[in-house]
Structures are given as C-alpha cells and as structure tokens.
C-alpha cells in the first residue's frame, strides 16, 4: 500500500510539473512565434527529409514499428514512435508516396493505419489511402523482425526506419538493410535494442532511450510536447537528487 501511495505521489508531482511547464511553454510560444527550438535529436528531422529523396528515386520508405503492445508498458514507446513519424506520414501523403509500415502487434497496427488514413483525410483525399500501406506481419518479435527484413529484398526500399519497441531482433532488420544498401535510420528505447542499432547508425541517425520521446516535440512542435520534455528534464534531476540522497543516507547508516 505504501508503494501505491508513493507512486500516486509521483504521478501527482509529474502532473503539477507538467501543468506548470505547459502554461510556461504556451506563453513562450505566443511570445516567440517563428523561433524554432530544437531537441538536439536530429534523426526526427531526417525522416521527413528522406521522403522527398525517396519519392524522387521512385523508391519506398519502410518503417518498422516493432512489437510494442499498446496495452502493456511498451505502449507509450510505440505512441512516441508514431509521434516522431507524424511529419513523415503527413509529407508522404502530400507526395502521395506512402511509406510501407510494418508492425508486430495488432493494436499498434490499427493505430498506425489510423495515422496514415488521418494524414490523407487532412489533405482532403481520404480515398487516396492504399490498402497494404500498413501491414501486420507476425505476433512474436523475432518472427516479425525476420519477416519484415525480407521486405529489403522484395521491395525497392530507399530508407529503412526502425523506430519503436525493439530488442536484439532489430539486428535482423538492420543486417538486411545494410546488405541491400538501404539507408538506415531509427531508434529504440530498450538497452538491447539500442545496442543493436548503435553500431550501424551514425550519431545523427539514431535516437536512443529517452531521446525517442522527443520526436513529438521536434516534428509536431506543439507546446504540450515541449512541456513534456521540460517536465522530463526536471523529473530527471529530482531522480538524481533522490539517488544521491539515498546513497548518502545509506553511507551514513540512516534508513533501511
């Protein structure tokens, strides 16, 4: 019960800090219209840059979103990945050269399809959505990765974006992309997924860990997303202070 109350306290602290930051960023956005902030994670900008290049070459972008279930703890990673891809989906719909999106989870498949359909609907051409743009591939992460990797051989891919909930199985996707000389971009939240992506992606091509959550702020540019990032920064310092305090208390023989 004590754990539950501590968790509730943490959620309330998060909510208050988020609300304060939200108000601050809203005012800042009104005061500094036209001034663009950046999160310092360039990979999200690169997504939309690739759309034009790939459309000119007559190729396709393959986005693999992983197998993060919306109903479990990986759900928010998948939602953050979809935020990071929103500029890409909007621009792809505008060029009418939709990406090929694959997922390994049914709920994520529905969300991704919804995002693409909405992008077409916002342009006033919902009928242009083509079936097969979003594909559900397989239910387990390893089979999903192996099956999605075959697209690098079967389709004419220009870019392969692996963004979402991945573990070491992402190396099957990156290997297929490297073998077929497909440009790679991506990001993973888990340490094993990040470790598999890090060696094949340059510093400006990858988002590791919490960087994945900055995609919304970078491409959607709404004050709520910037407020979320500022809240994350403040909470991170609170966690650091908490860890140091706990270490000092333990060193002094205080507490448990």
């Amino acid at each position, binding site marked *: 019960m004590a754990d*539950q*109350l501590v*968790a509730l306290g943490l*959620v309330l602290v*998060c*909510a208050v800090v988020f609300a304060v930051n939200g108000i601050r960023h809203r005012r800042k956005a009104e005061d500094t219209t036209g001034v663009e902030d950046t999160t310092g994670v360039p990979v999200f900008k690169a997504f939309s840059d690739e759309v034009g290049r790939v459309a000119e070459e007559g190729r396709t972008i393959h986005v693999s979103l992983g197998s993060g*279930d919306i*109903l479990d703890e990986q759900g*928010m*990673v998948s*939602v953050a990945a*979809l*935020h990071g891809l929103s500029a890409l989906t909007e621009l792809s719909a505008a060029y009418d050269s939709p990406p090929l999106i694959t997922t390994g989870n*049914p*709920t994520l*498949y*529905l*969300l991704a399809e*919804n995002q693409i359909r*909405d992008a077409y*609907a916002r342009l006033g051409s919902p009928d242009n959505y083509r*079936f*097969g743009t*979003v*594909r*559900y*591939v397989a*239910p*387990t992460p*390893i*089979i999903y*990765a*192996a099956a999605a990797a075959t697209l690098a051989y079967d389709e004419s891919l220009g870019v392969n974006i692996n963004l979402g909930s991945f573990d*070491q*199985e992402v*190396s*099957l996707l*990156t*290997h297929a992309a*490297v073998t077929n000389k497909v440009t790679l971009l991506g990001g993973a939240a888990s*340490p094993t997924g990040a470790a*598999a992506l*890090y*060696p*094949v*992606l*340059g*510093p400006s091509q990858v988002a*590791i*860990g*919490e960087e*994945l*959550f900055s995609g919304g702020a970078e491409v959607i540019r709404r004050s*709520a*997303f910037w407020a*979320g990032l500022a*809240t*994350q920064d403040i*909470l*991170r310092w609170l966690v650091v202070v908490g860890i140091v305090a706990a270490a000092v208390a333990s060193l002094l023989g205080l507490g448990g």
Partner: protein
Amino acid sequence: MFRWFLPTLFAVIVGLLVLLGSLLPIPTLASLRADLLSGAAVIASFAMVLAFANVLRVHFGRLVAKQAKSVHATGQRFASLILLLSAIASFVLVLLQGPEGIASQTIVEGVLIPGQSALLALTAVTLVLTGARILRTRWRASSVLFLVVALLVLWTTVGIGTPSGIGMPSGIGTPALVYPGILETVMRFVNAVATGGMRGLLLGVALGTVITGLRIIVGIDRPHSGG
C-alpha cells in the same frame, strides 16, 4: 465532435479510472479497473482478427497481382501461397480444437518454437556482424570503447582461453583463473559502469513513458483519434 471529442472523453475517463484503480487502495476502483482491462483485452482480440485479415489480404493480393515473370517474383508468390495455406490451416485447427488441442500444440512445439530458436541463434550472427561494422559508421574513440567492452564481455561470458574452452559457466570468475585479478577487476569496473548506464537509460525511458501517458490521460494527446 464524434470524430475526436467522444473518443477523447472516453480515453480520459477510462485512463483516470485505471490509474486510480492501480494506485488507490479502494476495492471498488480496483474491481472497475479489472473490468476495464478485461474489456481492453476483448478489443485487443478484435484487433488481432483485423490484423489476421490484413495478413491474408496482403498475401492474397501478392498472389493474384500481375507481376513480371522472374524467379524472384515466382519465389515471392510461392512464399505468399505457403503463408496463406499455413495461416488458414492453423486458424481452422485452432477453431476446431482450441488453443490447447493436440494439433495446435504440435504446431507450437514442433514449428513455432524451433523456428524462433533458430532465428534467435541467427541474431547472434547478425549482432556480431553489426558490431564489426561500427568502425565504418563511427570511427571515433567511443566506437573503439564499444568494441573493446563487447569483446571483453564476450570473452568472459563464453570462457575462451580457459582450460575447458568454450562452454564454461558464465561469469567473471572463469578467465580470471588464467589471468588472476586483472580481468576480474576490469570486469567489475565494466559491469558497474554498464549497470549504471543501463539504469540511467531505463529511468529516462520510464520518465518519458509517464509523461506520454499523462498527456493521453489529460486529453492533450489523442493517438486514437489522430490528434
């Protein structure tokens, strides 16, 4: 209004109830949370049916599509045919016998599990190849450090260079038999730094998860209705 307001209102109410049901020791809220999660499981099952239909439609489309005659296109069609047949056969078998039936279990134990094991073994190879590519993509001190640490961990885990060779129990003690003290000290340092880094990474992800969830619960973020 119906496009985004009602789904958002529903998401906010359900999100708040599930959150409070998890955090507050009130039996009514806990029971409501359990009911809502059961409802979510039913919706997820329906999503699975839609996803299965997507698989069938994509591969049926590939099967009947007019393609240039080539070995590669024939191979693709053949793969789609095999996938369609096995998907439909598995579906019918599970419908007839249930997921616990003999045929269903045989498919899981005889095909799925060995297949996944083989693919997992393959990731070991692709990971090694990926690691070897690091000096091509990132020629800098951190890349060398990455490789050195990866090799050290590999060495101490499989026990190469020990009297019994590969297959020794994992852990830092094994090569330390041959190189007493040095490797043990190095690996203690590496493990401490790696554990610290990993916890830092996971804490960052946890904070990002909380904030993303919070945005959905207060209705600012609407991934379910395109907002």
